[in-house]
C-alpha cells in the first residue's frame, strides 16, 4: 500500500476523483483490507452529510417512480454472464491474471508427475492452458454453486478451445467420476475430471462450435455416452 494511493480514500468516498483514478483506486481497494475498512467508515460518514441536506421531493415524483418500476426488470442477486461480458478491460485483465494464477496452482496440484513422460505431458498441458489464456479473444467466466464449488471457464472461439478449472470440488463418490460436457444442439463429452485436493482442470482443444454452456455431471466410472444425472455445475459459455 503506497501512502499516496491510500490518501485517496477521502477523495474517492466523496466521488472527487476522475474515472481513471476511481478504477485505479478500486483495483487497489480489492487488495487492501485496511483501505476497504476506511472506505466503509468514510462512506458512512459522507452519508451523514448527505442526510443533513434532506429535502422532500415534489409529491408527484413518487407516482412517476411507482409507475416506472413496472417497466424496469430487476437484476438477479448474482452477477449474470452479461455483466461479466460487459466488464471493463481492466477488470478482464485482472480476471485473466487471477485465472493464470489458478492455472499455475491447479497445474501444480494436478500435475504430479511420476515419470519423465508424465512430466512432459504436464508441461504441455500448462503450455496449452497459458496459450489459451493469452488468446486475443479469450473470455472468462467465474461462478460458484451454493455448496461452494468454484468454477472458472476460459473460452477462445478463435482457437476453438475451452478450459474448465474447478476448485473446492469434492472427490467423486466411490465408483463414480466427474464428466464434463459441452452443451449446444446436443451434449458432447470433453472428458473426465478427477479433482486432486479439490482442484481440477480440463481443457478441450476440439472445436467448440455451437456450444453455449459447459456442465459437469457425476457418471459411473469410465464415463457415459450421454449425461445420466443432473449437472453438479453448469456455466454459460461467454460468446
Amino acid at each position, binding site marked *: 500500500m503506497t501512502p499516496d494511493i491510500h490518501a485517496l480514500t477521502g*477523495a474517492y468516498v*466523496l466521488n472527487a476523483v476522475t474515472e481513471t483514478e476511481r478504477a485505479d483506486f478500486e483495483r487497489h481497494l480489492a487488495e487492501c483490507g485496511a483501505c476497504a475498512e476506511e472506505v466503509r467508515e468514510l462512506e*458512512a460518514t459522507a452519508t*451523514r*452529510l448527505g442526510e443533513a441536506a434532506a429535502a422532500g421531493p415534489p409529491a408527484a415524483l*413518487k407516482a412517476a417512480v*411507482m409507475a416506472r418500476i413496472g417497466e424496469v426488470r430487476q437484476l438477479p442477486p448474482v452477477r449474470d454472464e452479461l455483466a461479466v461480458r460487459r466488464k471493463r478491460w481492466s477488470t478482464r485483465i485482472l480476471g485473466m491474471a487471477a485465472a493464470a494464477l489458478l492455472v499455475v496452482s491447479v497445474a501444480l496440484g494436478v500435475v504430479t508427475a511420476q515419470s519423465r513422460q508424465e512430466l512432459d505431458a504436464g508441461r504441455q498441458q500448462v503450455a496449452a492452458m497459458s496459450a489459451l489464456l493469452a488468446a486475443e479473444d479469450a473470455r472468462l467466466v467465474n461462478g460458484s454453486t451454493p455448496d461452494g464449488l468454484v468454477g472458472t471457464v476460459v473460452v477462445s472461439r478463435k482457437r476453438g478451445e475451452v478450459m474448465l478449472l474447478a476448485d473446492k470440488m469434492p472427490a467423486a463418490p466411490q465408483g463414480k467420476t466427474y464428466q464434463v460436457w459441452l452443451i449446444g444442439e446436443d451434449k458432447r463429452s470433453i472428458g473426465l475430471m478427477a479433482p486432486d485436493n479439490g482442484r481440477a482442470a480440463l481443457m478441450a482443444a476440439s472445436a467448440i462450435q455451437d456450444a453455449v454452456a459447459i456442465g459437469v455431471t457425476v457418471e459411473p466410472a469410465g464415463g457415459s455416452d450421454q449425461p445420466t444425472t443432473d449437472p453438479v455445475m453448469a456455466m454459460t459459455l461467454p460468446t
Partner: protein
Amino acid sequence: MADRVRRITGSVPDTELPPDAGALLQRVARGDEQAFSALYDLVSAPVFGLVRRIVRDPAQSEEVTQEVMLELWRTAARYAPDRGSAMTWVMTLAHRRAVDRVRSAQSATDREDKAFRRETTRPFDEVAEQVSTRLEYEQVRRCLASLTDLQRESVELAYYRGLTYKEVSELLDTPLGTVKTRLRDGLIRLRDCLGVAR
C-alpha cells in the same frame, strides 16, 4: 442505524419508526412493490435533498432522483449488507449519480468553465452558509464546524458541489496533495466527531 433513527426522529414514538432500509431492500429485491413504496418514503427526501444540493436545477434534480430510485429497484438484490448500511448504499449511489450529471453537463462547457473558475472568487462562503442554514441535524453542523477551514471547505466543495479534488485544489489555490490529504483527514475527523461505527 436504528439508534440513529430514533435519535433523529426524537419525539416520534418507537412504534412509528420507519422500517429499516436494509430490510425493505431485501423485500424490494423479491419484487415487492409495497416495500419499494415504503423505501421511497424513507429515502426520497435524503436522496432528493442531496441531489438538489449538487445539481441545483429542480427539474434535473427530479430526473436524477427518479434515476436513483429506479436503480434501487433494479439492483436491490445486489445490495451487500457486509459492505455497509443500506442508507449508505443508497446515498453513495445518489451522490455518484448527481456528480455524474453535473460532470457530463460540465464537460460540454469545460473550456468556458475553466476560464470562469479562474475569474471567480472563492464561492465557498456562500456554500458554507447554505449548508449551515439547511442542515437539519445539529450534530452534523457542529462536527463540520470542528474541522479546520481548509478541511471543511475541501469536503463541502467536493461533496456538496461535486467537484474533483483537482478542481477543489484549483479553486482554493492549494496544492493537489494538500487537498487530497485534507479530504481524508477532514472526513476522518467528521467520522470521529459523529461517532460513526468503526
